[in-house]
């Protein structure tokens, strides 16, 4: 196996992890256009990556308050800090229907959100990553 082949395999692995991890991963650019949309997001929204690619997130998800969201992301772009929302203060960012007919106890998926900057190869921050954590189970205090 050549060195390049190895590298290709590594990237393939990373993509597999990105797609299959049990968390939503979304990458946005400075215009808030969707650059990456993993399986979790596709599964819960029913929207394929092809459909949302390069779409402005506020157009696809009108439930996201643009002003409020931009206030969160400003320091991420400009200060390179992380931003968070907790389901205790804001139950969800993406309005995903509760998908648990047996154990779900809320109408919508409760989400903890982390937003962090992505540096490009020139160390510039032109993209941010949103991690969506489904906390419905812990928030409704159902024992594991």
């Amino acid at each position, binding site marked *: 196996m050549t060195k390049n082949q190895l590298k290709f395999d590594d990237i393939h692995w990373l993509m597999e992890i990105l797609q299959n991890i049990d968390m939503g991963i979304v990458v946005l650019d400075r215009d808030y256009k969707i650059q990456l949309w993993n399986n979790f997001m596709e599964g819960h929204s029913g929207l394929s990556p092809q459909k949302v690619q390069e779409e402005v997130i506020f157009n696809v998800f009108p439930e996201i308050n643009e002003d*409020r969201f931009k*206030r*969160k992301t*400003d*320091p991420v772009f*400009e*200060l*390179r*800090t*992380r*931003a*968070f*929302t*907790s389901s*205790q*203060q*804001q139950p969800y960012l993406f309005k995903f229907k509760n998908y648990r007919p047996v154990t779900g106890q809320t109408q919508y998926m409760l989400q*903890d959100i*982390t937003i962090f900057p992505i540096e490009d190869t020139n160390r510039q921050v032109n993209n941010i990553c949103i991690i969506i954590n489904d906390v419905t189970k812990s928030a409704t205090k159902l024992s594991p």
Partner: protein
Amino acid sequence: MATQNISLSLEQRDCYQEIANVAMGQAADRLARLLDAYILLPVPKVSLMEFSDLHMAIADCLSDENIFTVCQGFAGSGISGEVLLFFNDVSFDELANLLGYQHNEDEAVKHELVLDAASVLTGSCLQGFGDQLAIRFIQSPPIIITNDNQNDTVIKKNSTLWKKTLTIAFNYSLEQLSIDCDVLLIFSESSVAQLHKKIDYLLD
């Protein structure tokens, strides 16, 4: 977990102090730009703190109704800790103005406001320290610590886990605004050795 014997030589203290000075200068500069407000340059104080002193300080702040306490964890290159932020006499109106929020009497909105402010303050100072030490610190979500027995029990439980550790204390205040926040950067006892190694490398 065995507690370690942590010491701080005069040279090490000076070195930490210098790093902290530069880091805080950078942090204040970044914050000022983001918030478009003048920030009084914080003067950091480096010291070793006993668990009992820390516990007392936290208990004092928690018993004061006018202080809002937020805690945020961080980690990078095997060096970890928590940042405690004590917002003194916080004016939600002014904080909302500063961060561009619509002011709202809703409790959840107030909490989110303080948590967002904490993330920005923590992030800017961690970045300052990280840049000086070539460490990329990652912040965990901030949490509000309130004055109930549960929190006190949680904090007390740590008394068996560590005795003495390195802390850096400073204050963020904004000119012309009554926003005043005491910050305590607490490294975990187990990461002090690693941190000393980095400092000693700089001193050589």
